[in-house]
Structure formats: structure tokens, C-alpha cells
């Protein structure tokens, strides 16, 4: 079994927030006495493009995404009070909902808006109310035992 260490993800330029987050992530998923599965592979992952059809939408019991920086842009329509995205955890349960109301447009036109999340992990995402059209992911794909 590969011995994946958190040092593999750390760089001299890692921020204190990244170091803290990665340390906590490995403490949760790489312990031998916990209920969580162990980390057996990490792959750097950068993706920019359409959200539909991406791997970020599908659940697998042995797959997680470690986010250093993820930006997404979504279309919303007049009358929709905000847009939000659900993040699901390693058990495929919704554990974080991020909303952004800053782009509500009183003029009634269809608009795009952007949002960003950093130092986070998820197994998959769902866009609850609006089409999340574009995504820019920067981080790692994690494979669990």
C-alpha cells in the first residue's frame, strides 16, 4: 500500500491556510484507526471549461477533490434570488452549501456571476437552483483505499 504523506502536497510557497488545511485533511483521511479510508494516491488537477459532464458531478466512494482554489460561474435568471452550490462529502452527504447573492440584477436580465472557494474538499458538487456553466478547478484528485 503506498504511503502517501502530506508533505507531498506542501511547497515552500504554501500559505499558512493551505498548510493547516492539508494537515487537517490528512489527519482525517490518513489515520490507521479511523473509520475513513486511507489515501492511496494524489494527482495534481487543473481544469477550466464547461461544468456539465465533468467528473466533479459524479460520486465514487474512493474519490475526493482537494481544492486549493475553485472558481465557478453560473447563469441565473430574473426572479431567482441567488445562486448556490452544494458540496457533498465522502459519504455522499451534503455538508456545505455556498450561496452568492451579489449578482442579483433588478433589471431582470439573465446574468452570470462568479464565486470562489479555497482550501476545501468534496466528493461531488451539485448546483441546486441554477445552471453552473463554467468551472475552473485548481487542486488535487485524491484516491482513497
Amino acid at each position: 500500500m503506498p504511503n502517501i504523506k502530506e508533505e507531498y502536497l506542501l511547497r515552500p510557497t504554501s500559505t499558512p491556510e493551505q498548510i493547516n488545511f492539508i494537515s487537517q485533511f490528512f489527519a482525517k483521511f490518513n489515520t490507521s484507526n479511523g473509520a475513513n479510508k486511507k489515501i492511496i494516491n494524489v494527482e495534481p488537477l487543473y481544469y477550466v471549461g464547461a461544468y456539465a459532464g465533468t467528473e466533479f458531478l459524479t460520486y465514487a466512494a474512493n474519490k475526493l477533490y482537494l481544492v486549493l482554489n475553485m472558481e465557478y460561474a453560473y447563469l441565473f435568471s430574473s426572479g431567482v434570488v441567488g445562486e448556490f452550490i452544494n458540496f457533498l462529502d465522502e459519504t455522499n452527504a451534503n455538508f456545505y452549501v455556498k450561496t452568492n447573492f451579489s449578482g442579483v440584477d433588478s433589471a431582470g436580465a439573465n446574468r452570470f456571476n462568479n464565486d470562489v472557494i479555497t482550501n476545501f474538499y468534496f466528493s461531488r458538487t451539485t448546483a441546486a437552483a441554477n445552471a453552473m456553466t463554467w468551472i475552473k478547478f485548481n487542486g488535487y484528485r485524491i484516491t482513497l483505499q
Partner: protein
Amino acid sequence: MGSETLWHKNNTPEQEIFLNSSYNYFNSNASPLKKVQSIVRVFGTELWFSSDLINYYNNKIYLMLFFKSLTNDNAFDANQLSFMNEQDIEHYRAENFGQLNAGFTNTNNELIVTNVWFSYVVATITPYNSFSYDGYLLNLI
């Protein structure tokens, strides 16, 4: 070719992942895309209409560590950027509604995108829209 230009010890983890992935994408033997012939560091600030970043060429790709669009006008309510890929197709969009237009005059609206690649950008066209950027230009063959 010339990829050593991209690697610096002070690159952030996000920059390292972005530059590795993007360079490999445009320099892969398995890809139908053109190969990287040379890499040039680019940075500057300029008005949109005099910027070459709005023009499409089939042999250049920008890897931008930092890209900022600043609009200053009261006739538009959003600062919008469409990032076009090597096939002249939109592959990412960013938009900032920071200040809606009603009741404001000559409002500044700043939109910053980091670690993004594109062949050119389509921007909100206002008289004083300007770009500031720092990154690399890949010349392809």
C-alpha cells in the same frame, strides 16, 4: 521547448499546478494541438482597444497568472470577460456586478481572474476598459 521559463521556486502551489497542466496540454504528443515553440514572459497595463489580447491567432496561447479587467463607465452594469480557447470557442466566463449602473456615474468595476489560459478575451467594451496582466505567451508551431 523553453519550459524552464515557467518554473520558479517562488511559484505558488496553484501556479505550479496550473502551469504544469497547461504546458503539458499544449505540448502533448497525444494531442492534436500544436507544439510549444517558445515561451515569452508578458506583463503590462493597457486599454482594451490597443491590446493584442483581444485578437485571435491560431498559434498563440496566454497562460495568465494574473489578469485584471477594469471598467469605468456608467452605461454598463457588469464587467464581463469571455475567455476563448485555441479553437476560438468560449471555455470560461467571469463577470463582476460590483456596482450596478442605476444611480451611479463613472463607476469603477474591477474583475480579477488568476491562473487561466486563453487565446484571446472578449471583454465588456467601455471607453476606459483596461487590462492588467502578468503571465506567459506560448508561441505554437
